[in-house]
């Protein structure tokens, strides 16, 4: 019989991460227990994750969580449930860390979900209540816990679905394996949920191109874009998850590569860019680690579509193409654009110009429009020309 030892199969980085996470959780909750045993009302003090408590750090060019806190007291009927949920999620994560597990946020939701049968003292009736009903609720307290102990869930070895992909002439070490990102065939490397544990080995690239649309990513990959232009090609497949953002940030920080972002020409595309660059509002506490302030918005810009007399720029699309490709903006698009206009980090001359053209023309455009005009056009004209001439928004 063979000796089975779990430890020997696990990577060293994981073991270290576990120890650190366990210690942080224990420290936060020991204090709570001490309060309880000395008759002090147990209260969780957590920084607020709201727009009002989101600060744009102009100097560093990223969003940060402010200092406003919310107090969650267990002895307050309106806060007791959230308090219980926070303790519950912490104890489940703690247990998973101790047992060398890698739960997903969905796993945590299921592990914590149970039914409390209680007697309503006013009526004497027995009623039932779940610790939580939807994953939304457990996800929310996971975020609270991240803020409370100042740790990202990935650092607590909680996994989520992989969404981001990367290809390019680069070698990395993930776990105990070396992976060559240039040998992925027609596929690509899925960026793992814990990108901090990735080790960059060597790289042969001059810039990073991040594309919102997976389909466009695949087209450029197969057409050999990254080989021809010495690029690392990444897609976030829509809203970027945290792993993709962290990965991009590390490429910028550690390898000093310029980051270009290509999205649809509409408020959603702009917000995707802004999440990469400054961070997101609901997760502003993570921006310190996830935002890439140096990221550049390559396109598609309103001026690419309509041109600009003032900037003496010709549009990339002809009148006829515009007619075919432009989509009319919806009311929610307009509303969203106005919201963006109020965010401090969008209040630059160039961005206000973009948004104002959009509001005037009430027109949006998908990146796919450019491949429809011709994949060659996108690959060999549009992208290289814009990069070469510095035609981006910083």
């Amino acid at each position, binding site marked *: 019989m063979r000796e089975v030892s779990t430890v020997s199969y696990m990577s060293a980085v994981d073991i270290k991460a576990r120890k650190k996470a366990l210690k942080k959780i224990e420290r936060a909750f020991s204090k709570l227990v001490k309060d309880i045993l000395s008759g002090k009302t147990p209260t969780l003090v957590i920084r607020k994750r709201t727009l009002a408590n989101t600060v744009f750090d102009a100097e560093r060019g990223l969003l940060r969580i402010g200092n406003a806190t919310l107090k969650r007291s267990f002895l307050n009927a309106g806060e007791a449930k959230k308090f219980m949920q926070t*303790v519950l999620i912490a104890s489940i994560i703690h247990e998973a860390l101790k047992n060398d597990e890698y739960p997903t946020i969905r796993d945590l939701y299921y592990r914590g979900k149970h039914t409390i049968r209680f007697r309503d003292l006013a009526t004497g009736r027995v009623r039932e209540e779940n610790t939580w009903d939807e994953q939304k609720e457990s996800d929310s307290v996971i975020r609270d816990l991240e803020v409370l102990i100042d740790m990202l869930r990935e650092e607590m070895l909680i996994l989520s679905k992989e969404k981001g992909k990367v290809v390019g002439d680069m070698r990395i070490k993930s776990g105990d394996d070396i992976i060559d990102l240039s040998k992925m065939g027609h596929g690509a490397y899925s960026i793992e949920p814990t990108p901090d544990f990735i080790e960059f080995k060597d790289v042969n690239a001059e810039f990073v191109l991040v594309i919102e649309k997976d389909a466009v990513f695949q087209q450029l990959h197969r057409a050999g874009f990254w080989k021809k232009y010495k690029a690392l090609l990444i897609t976030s497949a829509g809203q970027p998850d945290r792993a993709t953002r962290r990965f991009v940030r590390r490429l910028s920080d550690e390898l000093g590569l310029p980051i270009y972002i290509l999205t649809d020409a509409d408020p959603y595309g702009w917000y995707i860019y802004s999440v990469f660059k400054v961070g997101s509002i609901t997760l502003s506490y993570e921006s310190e680690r996830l935002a890439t302030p140096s990221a550049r918005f390559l396109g598609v810009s309103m001026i690419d579509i309509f041109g600009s007399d003032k900037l003496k720029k010709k549009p990339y699309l002809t009148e006829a193409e515009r007619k075919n490709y432009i989509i009319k903006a919806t009311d929610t698009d307009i509303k969203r654009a106005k919201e963006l206009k109020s965010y401090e980090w969008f209040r630059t001359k160039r961005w206000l110009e973009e948004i104002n053209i959009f509001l005037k023309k009430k027109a949006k455009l998908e990146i796919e429009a450019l491949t429809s005009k011709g994949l060659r056009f996108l690959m060999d004209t549009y992208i290289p020309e814009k990069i070469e001439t510095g035609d981006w928004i910083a």
Partner: protein
Amino acid sequence: MASEATAEKFRALTPSEFFYRNRELAGFSNPARALYQAVRELVENALDATDPHGIHPTIKVILQKVSAERDNIFSISVEDNGIGIPSAQVPRAFGQLLYSSKYVLRQTRGMFGLGAKMAVLYGQMTTGRSVEVLTSTITAKNIYYFNIAIDVKTNTPIIHEKGVYRKNNGWHGTVVKLYLEGDWTRSKSKIYEYLKRTAIIAPYAEIVFEDPEGTITYFERSTRKMPPPPREVKPHPKGVDIEMMRMMLKATKTKTLLEFLIKEFQSVGEVTARRLIENAGLLPDMKPHELSTEDVERLVRVIKSDTKIKPPSANHLSYVGEEIIKVGLKAILKPEFVTAVTRKPSVYEGHAFIVEAGLAYGGEIQPEDRPVLYRYANKIPLLYDEGADVARKVVDRIDWSHYGVTFPAPLVILVHICSTKVPYKGVGKESVADVPEVEHEIELAIREVARRLKRYLSKKKREREEAERAVAIAKYIPDVARGLAKIVNNVREEMIEKELLKMLNMKLRSFKINSVSDVVVGIE
């Protein structure tokens, strides 16, 4: 011939003839109403023979169908443990209309000398049978039996049979049994309602009722406390009209007008008497029977407009009292909340009166679209003509939402008026008239009990809200305790649970949670 045919014949009617023709005036209008009225008259006589004399009433009422063939002939028997009737009085008490021991100024249920005789008369008319009475006073050595009919023409008793039995136990009281035509189906609910309401206002009585279907209902005695006995009083000058004044002047044994006013009336002393005499232009030493019609008129007018006479005293009134009303409402209605108030005595037209109000809420009371009203006058339940009663008017005009009640709601209001002269509306003695003073007192009494209900309801609401808040926290204690004990080394779950519960209990004002398991019954 024509002149002979149209000539009017004059003759006097005896009271028995009058009521024989106008029995509906006394409530005997049809077989259903008559059955109800007969039960009521006999029960009220039984109560009058007990509680004013300090005896805890024990009353047995038996209603039976006399023969299987005839569906509408009943016998009523009512037995009490009261003071009994002196044997010499029995024939007239049951065989002569307008004969009574209650023609004095004293608050009793009966007062016209009519009730028992109307039942006897009605029975006699519809079945031809006479009344049987078995009675013995407290001091009597014998028990007396009478079988009596009324000679309607002459309004005199006819004694069919009389018996005397030696008493060898201490029994005292009266059993009255008579036969009459009735309609049980149509009077059943009223009779039950009457007995129920009687039991509410007299919870110190014990009442057994056997109905014609053989169903026996027992209203238990739920308190030994009894209302203060009513006492006889002299009339108050303001409650006396010209006719009564003339009768009193004629009957008095006093020698002078001054002495007459002082001795025959309450609230009149020498100063007051002299002032009244002077203002009426009379002389203190006039002989009472020498006053002329004009003198009497002037005297009464002066009395009516005098503002300085002391109001009538209410010492003689027998109110039920807050305690007994509460006991009665609680015992019969089994409510969740009960309260009662006895107002201070007040006066209308020279008559003292006291209003009492009771309120019962929730529990076994069925919700209704408006407050259920139980009306009483001198401890008699009033069941008919509710719509015309001043108390109904007051109850309906109150905005109950102001007192935290939204209908349908389980709310019963009891209103009791006691007075030597209850201002009944009409001769039916079923509803009380809108006398402003009485109406005002009723309103104050009802609003008082309503305010107490409001306080109770809002306290209950506060307590319910506190309980809800407490549960909203307590139900999570086990999960919090277990979670913390798992994360933190060396603390026991039970320890944290205990401390959390202690802290929670410290915050609670209206109750405490003994154990978390009182709230959390399971975690699955």
